[in-house]
């Protein structure tokens, strides 16, 4: 790895850069210099301003104030084409390519080779294949992009950027969907680009990747730059403290709550994507399910919730054997699923907050079909007060609330319903720290009231700290179980990866 100390000349420098959205600052007076040829990591909680910064660097947003220097000279950098002309490019977390086209067509998109007005397909395919082979990605250039895994598509996007002679390349959470092997391939590419002198900005939630790759790391919090540190002189604890201004112990709030009677007992449950899973959840208990993406955790809980079919096994709820065939069966028993994507699965965004909160209980608010307007408003208001949802009124559209408050709606509707077993699928993805704390406090409140919780999370510290019992999934099976914090996080990670 090249030297980390040499104060090379900055390739790109931000000076007092601001970005305001109708009065609120998304970025506040950022001073940040990216040295030529370094790998510079940027970390921060969701909402800290990372994506705003990327958009300013790639010309997607126009800054509200401050100057940007490129090789020491002031540049406008206010359109995407201006950024590309300088040699700035980005690989985004969500693949922004055309799924119906081939890998080669995507790599040459906007820059197609043609002769006499006709595309030179064969030439492009051969050239794309050569690039892919050269950087060691085992991908067929003639394949249709949609036929690849998300991870492979991500690699194509990276290869595309590499092929275009980029000088300043931003990676925005590139490994979110990658397998371990794909991550290694991507890292090899990044190191190689680094060796060729490309300046790299690497944005990731996974701090361990930063220690593996980067020379320097900058931390953003609430739109401001907290610190820029040499990676060799810092550690994870310090970065986390910079990011959230609180220690992990303060965030992962947990009360000691006595375990009550069994709510859910699952025996030998099998279905597509998981097999022979047995576990139980008691009142007052958090049961964590940890595993890599695709390990079968989500499939398993969806079967419990009646969304997927199961091929074998028994489910008992409060000691009684039950048959759950569809969502409504589970809901009627008192099982609630708080899904992973609140935008796609959790909320009716263009409906009122109250409408969303009451959605599971309209059969109660309207026993004979007609809705009692006052009862409806009261039920909604009760949850808004209870959950401390910040909204002007229960009649406001759900879309106008912040992410954290939207998440509280998704949880709140199950409180109205009176569920006893809560399944949380990645409950804190995309919410800020303050809301995280509130969500964990809600856990405690639910547990005190006699509920049980199944917590699915890919964020190991979260499941590790909050679970009373932790089940580790690997390839559809439970490979290990642990009582609360009886082993360290590293052991659990190893079990999940299967090494």
């Amino acid at each position, binding site marked *: 790895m090249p030297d980390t100390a040499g104060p090379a000349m900055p390739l790109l420098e931000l000076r007092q850069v601001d970005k305001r959205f109708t009065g609120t600052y998304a970025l506040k007076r950022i001073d940040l210099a990216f040295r030529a040829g370094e790998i510079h990591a940027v970390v921060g909680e969701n909402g800290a301003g990372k994506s705003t910064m990327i958009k300013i660097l790639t010309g997607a947003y126009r800054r509200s104030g401050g100057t940007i220097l490129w090789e020491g000279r002031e540049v406008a950098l206010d359109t995407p084409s201006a950024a590309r002309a300088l040699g700035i490019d980005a690989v985004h977390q969500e693949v922004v390519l055309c799924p119906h086209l081939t890998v080669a067509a995507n790599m040459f998109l906007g820059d197609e080779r043609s002769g006499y007005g006709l595309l030179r397909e064969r030439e492009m395919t051969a050239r794309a294949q050569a690039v892919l082979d050269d950087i060691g990605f085992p991908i067929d250039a003639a394949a249709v992009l949609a036929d690849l895994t998300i991870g492979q598509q991500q690699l194509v996007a990276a290869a595309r950027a590499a092929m275009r002679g980029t000088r300043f390349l931003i990676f925005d959470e590139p490994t979110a969907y990658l397998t371990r092997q794909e991550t290694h391939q991507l890292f090899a590419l990044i190191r190689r680009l680094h060796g060729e002198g490309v300046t790299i900005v690497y944005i990731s939630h996974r701090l361990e990747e930063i220690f593996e790759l980067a020379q320097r790391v900058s931390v953003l919090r609430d739109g401001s730059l907290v610190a820029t540190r040499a990676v060799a002189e810092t550690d994870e604890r310090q970065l986390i403290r910079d990011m959230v201004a609180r220690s992990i112990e303060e965030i992962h709030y947990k009360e000691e709550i006595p375990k009550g009677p069994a709510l859910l007992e699952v025996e030998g449950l099998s279905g597509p994507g998981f097999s022979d899973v047995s576990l139980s959840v008691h009142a007052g208990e958090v049961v964590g399910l940890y595993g890599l993406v695709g390990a079968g955790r989500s499939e398993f809980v969806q079967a419990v919730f009646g969304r997927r079919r199961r091929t074998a096994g028994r489910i008992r709820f409060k000691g009684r054997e039950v048959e759950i065939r569809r969502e409504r069966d589970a809901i009627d028993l008192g099982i609630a699923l708080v899904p992973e994507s609140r935008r796609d699965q959790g909320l009716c965004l*263009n*409906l009122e907050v109250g409408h969303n909160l009451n959605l599971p209980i309209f059969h109660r608010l309207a026993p004979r079909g007609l809705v009692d307007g006052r009862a409806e408003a009261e039920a909604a208001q009760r949850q808004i007060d209870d959950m401390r949802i910040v909204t002007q009124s229960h009649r406001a559209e759900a879309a*106008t609330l912040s992410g954290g408050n939207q998440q509280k709606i998704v949880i709140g509707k199950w409180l109205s319903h009176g569920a006893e077993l809560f399944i949380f699928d990645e409950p804190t993805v995309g919410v800020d720290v303050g809301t995280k704390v509130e969500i964990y406090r809600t856990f405690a409140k639910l547990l005190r009231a006699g509920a049980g919780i199944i917590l699915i999370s890919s964020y190991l510290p979260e499941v590790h700290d909050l679970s009373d019992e932790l089940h580790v999934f690997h390839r559809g099976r439970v490979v290990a179980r642990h009582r609360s914090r009886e082993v360290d996080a590293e052991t659990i990670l190893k079990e999940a990866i299967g090494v």
Partner: protein
Amino acid sequence: MSEIANNAGANSAGLAAPVRRRRGFRFGLLLNLTLLGLLLLLWLLLALSTDNFATYSNISNLARQASLFAIIAVGQTFVIITAGIDLSVGAVVGLASTVVAMLLVGGVPVWAAVAVTLLMGVGIGLFHGFAIVRLRLPPFIVTLATLTALRGIGLLMTGGQTIAGMPAAFGSFSRESFLGVPNLFWVVIAVAIPCYVVLHHSRWGRHLYAVGSNQEAARLSGVNVGRTIYFAYVVSATLAALTGILTASRIGVGVATTGDGWELQSIASSVIGGASLFGAVGSVIGPLLGAVLLTTINNGANLLNVNPFWQRIITGALIIVIVYFDQLRRRRR
């Protein structure tokens, strides 16, 4: 610990997006008032510029025609709220007018003929629901197919002939008035009130909006999405069948090709009345106003001797303008 809680509260309060109260509601009200204003303006202009507009016979004629469009437009709105579309309503109108005419000519009592025809509408709606929910076909395709097929069935049953010879009492219903208001308009009221109650004050209405807004979220909240979709298409097809019966009564014969292009009229009325083809937005009063507006434009153009082809162009332009405003509202998010 309490400090954290305070911070947390302050934090999330600070990050909350500025809340705008019920913009959807306000926009809907604004749109309806605008439509009403536009309508009154049109009426005033037509009354001043033509001799025939402000006559009892013209107004009641306009009311009858508008009533037919209004009924199917309300049904169409139920479907549009679920983010679906029903292209078959015009064909259902045609088939229903033929079926009711054939039954009546065949000597079946009026009540039975009407009941059977309405049940046919229910059946068609159930089929749409089945194809969309069970076979997972897109609503556009399903109803496009039935649009063609139902027209074919109507033509096959009649051999392309007009069915005449219905009892006089059946025909007089749609020509007569009660308290000075055409009977057909009373039917609209009789349809609109229960539809309004269902849509805005019942559990099923809440579920319709939820399914149109986010099917997945609705399903996860225990809403029976399939049943809700069945319900919307049954309402639409049944109201189309009712319109077919009324049309047969109005023109005094059953013709398989009646209602040609009415699906577009109904969609236009619904959209002009504020419904969003993306779902979860729409009302009952909107399509009623939309239908009256479109009928007035047609009626006025006839009276002013405007080339009838212009009517189609005006309707098209109006749709674009209204949907553009809807789009503006969406973009401000």
